[in-house]
């Protein structure tokens, strides 16, 4: 097991280019178990790319990523996607719920994909909807709920299989202040209770204020302090 002092996830000296554009040009990040890290920086500085690389969604051109002592680069695609499904959760700005399923079914989906029986999956999903204060919309579809409710459903879905790291890219980007606050309060509360680490990309300082620590990305680079042993 990881104790608090040892980083759970480490991305080191990451480079990633899209054609002539260097999205990452020597960025690093480390996240300890249960820690909430805000990733900040100007638009286009490489925040989302850093999140995608650290989560094993996009392979970097160079640099190393290790999770719980294992190198992501050394894994097969199958191993990497299994890791993402079991250990990681994701919340994006919008458009991540399956429109044909009810909110409850959406939250139960990751468990179903992992082989949990329907009744059990939906029982646990209902518990998460309750924690995120959206139990009342369990049987509505995503198109029938507000943006703020939809984001809380997305957070419930991301946390339902108790990931050790939650990756959130501008989770409040499309919400007004009141709903943004609500999502952040419930997201961080749930993450802290289940000892889930959070990588939170945001350009809003009030949102970043829910974190324990911030990493600033500028022109695809971070400060040397992120390069830990």
């Amino acid at each position, binding site marked *: 097991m990881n104790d608090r002092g040892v980083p759970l996830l480490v991305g080191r000296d990451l480079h990633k280019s899209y054609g002539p554009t260097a999205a990452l040009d020597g960025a690093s990040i480390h996240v300890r178990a249960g820690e909430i890290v805000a990733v900040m920086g100007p638009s286009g500085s490489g925040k989302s790319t850093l999140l995608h690389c650290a989560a094993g969604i996009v392979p970097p051109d160079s640099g190393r990523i290790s999770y719980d002592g294992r190198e992501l680069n050394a894994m097969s695609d199958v191993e990497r996607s299994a890791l993402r499904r079991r250990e990681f959760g994701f919340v994006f700005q919008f458009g991540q719920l399956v429109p044909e399923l009810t909110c409850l079914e959406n939250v139960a989906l990751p468990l179903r994909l992992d082989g949990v029986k329907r009744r059990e999956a939906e029982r646990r999903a209902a518990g998460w909807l309750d924690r995120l204060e959206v139990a009342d919309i369990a049987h509505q579809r995503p198109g029938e709920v507000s943006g703020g409710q939809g984001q809380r459903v997305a957070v419930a879905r991301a946390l339902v299989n108790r990931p050790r790291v939650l990756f959130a890219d501008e989770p409040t980007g499309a919400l007004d202040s009141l709903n943004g606050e609500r999502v952040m309060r419930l997201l961080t509360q749930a993450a802290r209770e289940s000892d889930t680490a959070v990588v939170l990309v945001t350009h809003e*300082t009030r949102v970043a*204020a829910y974190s324990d620590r*911030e990493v600033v990305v500028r022109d695809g680079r971070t400060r040397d302090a992120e390069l830990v042993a």
Partner: protein
Amino acid sequence: MSIGQAFLGLLESQPRHGYDLKRAYDERFGQGRPLHYGQVYATLSRLLKNGLVEVDSVEPGDGPERKRYAITAAGVTDVERWLGQPEKPDLHLQNTLYMKVVLALLTGRGAADILDSQRSEHLRLMRELTRRKTDGDLADQLICDYGLFHLEADLRWLELTAARLDDLAGKVRR
């Protein structure tokens, strides 16, 4: 107000007579309230006494305005330290933050470092307010939010300014 540090920054960009120094200060930071000559010479004599500036030439004639002042190595170190040190976040910081950004550009230093160190200082207080808000009653929430929105505004201004860095650098360095 940091008149002393502003003088040092202005002198680092070039040596000046007392009168020029006052005019440069009033133009950039005076906001319609020019310095008194008394303040100018009192500040200069304090900086002289502390070895942060020196008289670099004296023109013939009398009166203090004959002297031209230059920054010393100790003075440069002092400016450097002041620019590198974030301000304690409060709700009336605009003047000092503005002064730091202008002087950083004027002396060929970047505003990005000021932004980063100030953001981390602001975030420290904002985290504390966020915690207090999360644990508190409605009154706590309202009061903490008031502070959070105002502190965020400082940073948004700093961010915008850092983004305009190049643009601004061309205009300030005259």
